[in-house]
């Protein structure tokens, strides 16, 4: 067993885990943050996407030990002060979720996508960038709509701030 420390959703946390423990299991089992999900065994589905040091990663594909000392943001930490993040709000407005299981990973991947592309996102780019996130409920139609709407809104508010 190894003691690992990191910052998760702005809080310093630490926990004991086996060397082989994946980050997703550390988040779910040690920290009881069960919003991050496991939907496959092969890093394909993206239900486990979190942000590590500001970039989206699949938390099933790195060891908890590799994340030691890093800043992790999970879905639970996204809504600052209880207000939904614009991506979360857009998913709700545009009905971008049904069963909700892929949703945390989708939202975290979408936030990263908008961070990388800004308001210039178009449908083709969004669809290509969702390659690593599988949804079985929505047919992606409303997820794509929600991400485009959120990108536009975040771009507009960024512009207003400048």
């Amino acid at each position, binding site marked *: 067993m190894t003691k690992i420390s990191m910052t998760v959703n702005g809080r310093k946390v630490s926990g004991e885990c086996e060397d082989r423990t994946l980050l997703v299991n550390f988040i779910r089992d040690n920290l009881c943050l069960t919003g991050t*999900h496991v939907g496959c065994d092969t890093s*394909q589905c993206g239900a486990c996407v979190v942000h590590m040091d500001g970039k989206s990663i699949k938390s099933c594909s790195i060891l908890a030990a590799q994340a030691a000392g890093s800043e992790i943001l999970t879905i639970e930490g996204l809504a600052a002060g209880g207000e*939904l993040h614009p991506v979360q709000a857009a*998913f709700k407005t545009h009905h971008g979720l049904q069963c*909700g299981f892929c949703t945390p990973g989708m939202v975290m991947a979408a936030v990263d996508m908008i961070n990388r592309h800004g308001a210039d996102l178009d449908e083709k780019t*969004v669809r290509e960038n969702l390659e690593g996130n599988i949804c079985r409920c929505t047919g992606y139609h409303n997820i794509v709509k929600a991400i485009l709407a959120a990108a536009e809104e975040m771009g507009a508010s960024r512009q207003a701030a400048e």
Partner: protein
Amino acid sequence: MGVEGIGARVARKEDKRFLTGKGRYTDDMVVPGMKHAVFVRSPHAHAKIRSVDTAAAEAMPGVIAVLNGKQMLDDGIGNLICGWMIHSKDGSPMKMGAWRPLAHETVRYVGDAVALVVADSVAEARDAAEAVMVDYELLPAVTDAVKALEAGQPQLHPEAPSNLIFDWQIGDPDAADAAIASAAHVTEMKIVNNRLAPNAMEPRAALGIYDSAEDHFTCYTTSQNPHVARLVMSAFYNVAPENKLRVIAPDVGGGFGSKIFIYPEEVTCLWASKRTGVPVKWTCDRTEAFLTDAHGRDHVSTVKMAFDADHRIIGLKVDTVANFGAYMSLFSSSVPTYLYATLLSGQYAIPAIHANVRAVYTNTAPVDAYRGAGRPEATYLLERTVETAARELGISPAELRRRNFIRSFPHQTPVIMNYDAGDYEASLEAAMAAADWNGFAARKAEAAARGMKRGIGMSCYIEACGLAPSAAVGSLGAGVGLWESAEVRVNAVGTIEVLTGSHSHGQGHETTFAQLVSERFGVPIDNVSIVHGDTDKVQMGMGTYGSRSGAVGMSAVVKALDKVEAKAKKIAAHLMEADESDIVLENGELKVAGTDKSVPWFQMALAAYTAHNLPPGMEPGLKEGAFYDPTNFTFPAGCYICEVEVDPETGKTKIVQFVAADDFGNIINPMIVEGQVHGGLAQGIGQAMLEGVHYDPSTGQLLTASYMDYTMPRADDLPSFNISHQNTPCPGNPLGIKGCGEAGAIGSPPALINAITDAIGNNDLSMPATPGRVWAAANAAH
């Protein structure tokens, strides 16, 4: 329609918890003392178990117990069953082989469970599972259903000689033969409907908790129908009496049919919890899901469709072989019979139909209902055949369909169903207009100039939803009734709880059921809570499948609301000293019609509970329950048009546009209905273009056991969809709802395949139409 009532595009109430990571799925549950289970599964498709040696595994770190099938048998846990009786045409009952939750004599497919390891952690349980030594005596295996019927093939169950479970028929064979003999034209096809893995994103899971003090079990499980799970586990599997077994299906991450059935794992976890004295949780990994979730489809059929000289369909004859896998899953027998062959009339007036269906055991995962369940198979068969006939007859596919549409209702088909309402022409016209059907030739020419092959195809589907009058399904062999229950509790301050036997695993019931209450009583949807998924809270109910929650589940709520309203009006009339018949409910107030007298809703509710001033003889409180049993199936229908562009160099198909025009009856929340259509289309397009379960035919090994090998539809495989509704209210239920959950998966595969075969000029193409297959078919055509 109020802003939150029927017909309003209300954003979902349940979204916030899913969007903020606060959803609570079975694998999220943690209880004190909980341990983790991993199943030891057969690596062989067919073998005798000589011995199971658990000594090494028991000595591994963290291991609590290693349990086997003999212990389970000794403890009296029963066989898994199929709950729908089908009789063969010779009158004999279906031949069901024994299915043990943990096999102790024979394994019959790769993934068949043999033993269970319970340990402190999942990792330790997994390590120990690898140390369980099972000595197998290998037997030959068969995975193809048609081949399994042949002489000399491996035999799975002694109860079913030749692997034949039943040989069933429907319709009039002589009339169909006579129509074919007298026909001006007969279109003949062989149709294969590919096997699919359902792939709800949340893998199945179960947490069994035994309380020795109360001799009581609690089961958290990924179920679409927790009450049915409790009933079956009590009455047939002998886990515990119903009053000693609580089943909770919390948030469930998609079902698509695969979570209707009671699997070995939840039964085993409950039993293991009693045996070990600790709560036992098992969560499926994705490969395990591919191996053991009930698969869908897997039909091989031949069809003959007979036309007279006026291009009217005068007869249809279908022969289908349905692969059931290694065991009969809970509702497996209903799928290729009453959910399939009863829909073979499609949207067409066909005077003579005969279908023969043989159900066959093979060394593959059990096959049962998957989104659409039988109706996609019927639609694919019919709509490919009609399209092919149009090409053979040299008339437009739309014209051939129009000529054969049923136009007056009710319409009795020769295969049981009585269609109650519909307007098939309206959906056809709407879809053709939306797709700019008439402009296709120009688009095809433009694509050809770029070296691309453009094609267009349509599909006109009908399905039967609502499942269904209990007496009717009982007469057809169902072991359960298919009504639904509801209870409406008005609290003393006027807020409302609706307890429903329906279960939401993505469908948005917490919103749509609240919209119904808001429409009736004028209360905000935030004042209405929907309770489902817990057998201790909700009275017996039948759950969600077959697009039934609106048509059946909400109808039960309507009945309960009727009773609440009647009592509320009595109380209000008493309070205002008015006549009960003069009371109207408007905007959250009970008013005396034509006066300015009114009582707010909450005040009436408070009066019901203070009981200081109720009409003489009235019981205090305001809570009513109801059971609703439908009078008929419902019949959603529609027309789908797909336009594709095929790259002849690579065989890659691009969907240029997909148009869906549906008749779902009345709609509670259009936004949610559209979402259901999108998701169904994605699954149907997945079946037609991407997905397919493949077993190695000689060894029975599953070759598509991960997302590396089984192609799930991704965002860049799909277009945005163009959808519309042409609704005719359903006359069979109080809300006029037909259901929308399965339509997309039912109607889309033939539209897509018809489009691709149109593009490449070769009709010899099977699903999934992968680039390799399309390229080969396109090149074979020249």
